């Protein structure tokens, strides 16, 4: 799923520090940039600019939160999957997302923040997660649409991150991308079954495409003129392609897939430009995107409430585990002493 959708101007943290840099720092920064330019991986113990560290913590933790929150809209259909084969596939997929959350929190922890701290930021509303998960999944076709479109968009965003300059993030992304591309194929196959099914199933598939198309395009983040962090992140090789480039790639890849399904993309302005070989598409309504970022999406409140409830309801369990571990240590010490 996600990454660039949070590149809005309201985000803070990526700008290089305005204070004066010392000569020594300037030398370190110069050396750092040389290493990045030479495509060397930056590792946790290496010197890095504060802004680079902050940007990575923000991006990796938002990505981790998105995986965890993303478990909810799909988890919504596990108990109602229409065949046992589909149920197993969906369970495995949502489990993979939990696993991605784990690797990503671990990658963020290499930058000196704890998972509990990051989760605290998610639950307090301070940290963001991908807006796409603030849309509901009212029908089974939404599970197909998420796999096909949302995971499809995520792959476009994430494959370049496998070459991100920060080693732990890049390595986490290699594994994540492999699983995401499997999810994407699974989602498309689910849509295909619906598109080739009864009239009611086809209607379900078209309805899901209608609802997920524009939000999927918004996953790439604001247009290049609007994006706050692009140039610095490109220089740091955290980001390799601009939001608009990636969005275009996604549209070019997805339109023929929709045609194969016999479904209609809900954009009357969509057309192939024979000269460029690219699809041209209509203007994105950023008002909706901005409202969701502000917390006004259809499911913002439910998603955070569900995460808070899980955390609060689980407090006694986590406390018990800690208490039991302490008792065991004490007993072991007593035995040894």
């Amino acid at each position, binding site marked *: 799923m996600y990454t660039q959708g949070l590149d809005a101007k309201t985000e803070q943290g990526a700008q290089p520090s305005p204070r004066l840099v010392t000569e020594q720092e300037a030398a370190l920064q110069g050396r750092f940039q040389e290493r990045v330019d030479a495509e060397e991986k930056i590792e946790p113990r290496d010197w890095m600019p504060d802004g680079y560290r902050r940007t990575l913590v923000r991006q990796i933790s938002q990505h981790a939160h998105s995986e965890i929150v993303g478990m909810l809209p799909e988890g919504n259909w*596990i*108990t*109602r999957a229409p065949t*046992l084969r589909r*149920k*197993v596939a969906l*369970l495995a997929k949502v489990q993979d997302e939990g696993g991605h959350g784990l690797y990503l929190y671990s990658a963020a922890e290499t930058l000196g923040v704890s998972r509990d701290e990051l989760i605290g930021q998610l639950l307090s509303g301070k940290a963001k997660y991908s807006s796409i998960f603030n849309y509901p999944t009212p029908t089974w076709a939404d599970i197909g649409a998420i796999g096909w479109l949302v995971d499809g968009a995520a792959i476009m965003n994430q494959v370049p991150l496998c070459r991100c300059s920060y080693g732990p993030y890049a390595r986490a992304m290699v594994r994540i991308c492999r699983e995401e591309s499997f999810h994407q194929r699974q989602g498309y196959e689910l849509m295909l079954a619906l598109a080739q099914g009864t009239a009611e199933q086809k209607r379900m598939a078209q309805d899901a495409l209608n609802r997920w198309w524009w939000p999927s395009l918004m996953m790439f983040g604001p247009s290049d003129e609007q994006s706050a962090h692009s140039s610095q992140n490109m220089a740091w090789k955290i980001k390799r392609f601009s939001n608009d480039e990636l969005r275009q790639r996604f549209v070019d890849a997805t339109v023929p897939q929709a045609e194969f399904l016999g479904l209609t993309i809900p954009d009357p302005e969509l057309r192939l430009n024979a000269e460029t070989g690219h699809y041209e598409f209509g203007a994105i309504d950023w008002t909706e995107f901005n409202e969701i970022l502000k917390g006004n999406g259809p499911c913002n409140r439910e998603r955070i409430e569900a995460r808070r409830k899980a955390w609060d309801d689980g407090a006694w369990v986590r406390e018990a585990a800690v208490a039991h571990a302490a008792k065991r240590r004490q007993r072991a010490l007593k035995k040894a002493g």
Partner: protein
Amino acid sequence: MSTDLKEALFGYTLRLGDTSLVLGHRLSEWCGHAPELEEDIALTNVALDLVGHARMLLTYAGELEGKGRDEDRLAYRRDVFDYRNHLLVEQPNRDFGHTIVRQFLHDAWAVELYGRLCASTDETLAGIAAKAVKEVRYHVRHSGDWLVRLGDGTEISHAKVADALGRLWPYTGEMVERDESEQALVAAGIVPDPAELKAAWTARVEAVLNDATLDRPADGWMQKGGRRGEHSEHLGYLLAEMQFLPRAYPDANW
């Protein structure tokens, strides 16, 4: 295999399949809502294994029955009175403590059962058991470890699991009860003797309860009926949710 024996084995396999499916469903309700991320993953993993076992068992049950019902036909088109799962596994999740107690009481049975079924004279059942036993060994370690952590954790956690244990204990009797219809299967070496299973289950449960500083509840009145299709009110809601799509769109392929 004689017709009677086949019918008895159909009933037995269906009971195991339904029990795995219903418990897998209950665990899958936790997905995204567990006390910590590792548990979200672990509970989902166990759910995944259980639904996997259900698929193998229901497929085999359908073959034994010989009426052309496949795993989905059996899972999605039967009503409450045709389900044969143990009453224990349809009990709601309530909290993590209840879920763990329910899971452990089941896992302790499953690991003893599948271990023995590996030696079944029925090759298909033995094959299914050989796959399942590797997974249920992990399940029982997971639920047993949690039961010990919660029982021997804080006062609150101890009270919660003690309450769950008292509430769920009456549902354990039918897992290991003697059943007339099974006698022929036992005699043919297809399934283990319930008395032996009961002794092994009891020993396993008592050892973990001891580590968890929990008292074993007295064996009073036991709730039974799952084997005959007599269920609690909970199963109807579970099936209504699970079967919604195939019931609403009976002609669709998914």
